[in-house]
């Protein structure tokens, strides 16, 4: 069963088109990373899936139903971001008790365990927590609720590196024991790519790419060599990224299969082949300027 399915989804806010004609499905029990630059529309997309926002046009189905104003979707879904709000007069442990009442699969033992591990004070108030502690607490709620659809929107804001690592590890371990459909939107792809199964790349409101992470990483390679050689070789290739290295050398990113063809025909000719990191590749695939920031500085 597809947990989420969108057909031609478009969302406009006044005159701004935040999402444009998006079509995709997300299958059951997979971890998908929603990646894209700021303003790409990630939060908007996630909030429409969660039923908080309405689509302007197109169709959205979650658990085969329209998620907007839908109690069944709301009861089986949890949305974790830094905008989660709790009553000011409740302590953290009271909030956990309240959450337990709302979510059938709530695991209080897990919640308490994580609570103690991260040294949270049960008598503390949510609005008094630092940003990082808030994110940690919100994350605990997200994990302990064990909702069939769990959405994390930039869940690690304010968390330091150690806490983030623990979060990813906790997420993976709980997912292994209790599989569910998870979507994480994060700008720290390099940190989470190992635990992802699929990547959904969004840029300027449009879906660029949706593939397994392992396919993405094999999608392109980088070639480095003398500029004339590179230029000649890649003359009629689609180039995702290019920059000058020193005076005579050039670094270029193209499709792996194309590169293999070229190398077979032309031989190595002093060219070096490098892998491309997934997060770099995502940036190249979504950026407008082919040379990246270096193009501002390399003006010869």
């Amino acid at each position: 069963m597809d947990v989420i399915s969108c057909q031609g989804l478009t969302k406009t806010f006044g005159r701004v088109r935040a999402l444009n004609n998006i079509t995709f499905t997300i299958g059951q029990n997979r971890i998908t990373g929603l990646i894209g630059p700021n303003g790409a529309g990630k939060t908007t997309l996630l909030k429409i899936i969660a039923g908080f926002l309405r689509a302007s046009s197109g169709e959205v189905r979650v658990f085969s139903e329209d998620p907007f104003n839908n109690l069944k979707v709301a009861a089986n879904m949890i949305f974790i971001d830094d905008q989660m709000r709790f009553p000011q007069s409740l302590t953290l442990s009271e909030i956990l008790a309240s959450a337990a009442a709302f979510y059938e699969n709530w695991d209080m033992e897990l919640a308490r365990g994580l609570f103690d591990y991260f040294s949270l004070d049960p008598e503390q108030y949510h609005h008094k927590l630092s940003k990082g502690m808030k994110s940690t607490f919100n994350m605990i709620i997200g994990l302990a609720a064990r909702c069939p659809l769990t959405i994390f929107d930039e869940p690690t804001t304010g968390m330091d590196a150690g806490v983030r690592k623990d979060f990813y590890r906790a997420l993976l371990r709980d997912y292994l024991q209790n599989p569910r459909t998870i979507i994480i939107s994060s700008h720290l792809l390099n940190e989470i790519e190992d635990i992802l199964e699929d990547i959904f790349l969004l840029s300027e409101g449009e879906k660029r790419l949706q593939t397994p992470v392992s396919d993405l990483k094999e999608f392109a390679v980088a070639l480095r060599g003398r500029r004339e050689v590179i230029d000649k070789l890649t003359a009629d290739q689609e180039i995702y990224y290019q920059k000058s290295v020193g005076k005579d050398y050039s670094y270029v990113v193209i499709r792996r299969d194309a590169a293999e063809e070229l190398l077979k025909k032309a031989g190595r000719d002093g060219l070096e082949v490098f892998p491309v990191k997934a997060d770099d590749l995502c940036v190249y695939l979504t950026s407008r300027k082919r040379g990246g920031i270096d193009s501002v500085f390399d003006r010869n």
Partner: protein
Amino acid sequence: MSLTGISLTEPSFFDTVKKQFLYKLKGRLGLFLAMIGVQIMALLFSLSGASSHGMGDNLLYFSFNEFSSDQVIWFTFLWIFVVAVLITTKDYQNIDFTFVANRLSSHLSNVGFLITAAVIGGVTAMLSGILLRIVIYFTRGHYLLSENFIAAPEVVLTGIAVTILYLLLVSALGYFCGVLVQLSKVFIVILPALYIGTVDFLARELPVIVKVYNFIIGENSLALLAVKVLITTALIYACSCVLANRLEVR
């Protein structure tokens, strides 16, 4: 390790409303503390801002001091209106949708909360009237007290009932105004202007409005008043729910 993962829950609507209602009661205790504070403040005003006059000659001097617990009631009306508007704002909404909710369950649990607030507010407002009498008796002397001083139980109970009914009406209006503002910020300007200008204007120009007002408010039978107020309140809430059902949240 199961192949299909976690199974889906099918939530019952009324179960959700109940859960949200209890969550709100627990989480909004602060608002009730504010109510106590407001009523105490009103009591203090009542004690000092009473009207007094005196008359007499050389031998005898009468001094009349008039106290009224109306202040407390008016302040409680104000309090519940503000609370009703407050709970329609974004931050309060977000609390609902952080957990499990749909818009209708959010509204119904809010209505339940406001009904509870009206009942508590009505009881405490009337009781503070009694408190006022006690304070006056002990601090201002018990020389000659008017016949209204001893409040008969039926009077108190009727007073409580009427106050609760009016609080229900006021809170429904407050909620409706809050919803309008959520629909469009324009209403922040329109509504106060409307209130100030129109009530007065319409009352003069359109006797129909006055008739409706009197029909609802000016009623001698408690039961009939109750019916009218409850129906009006329910209608206002229904409008609020319908208007706010398509709002986006979080």
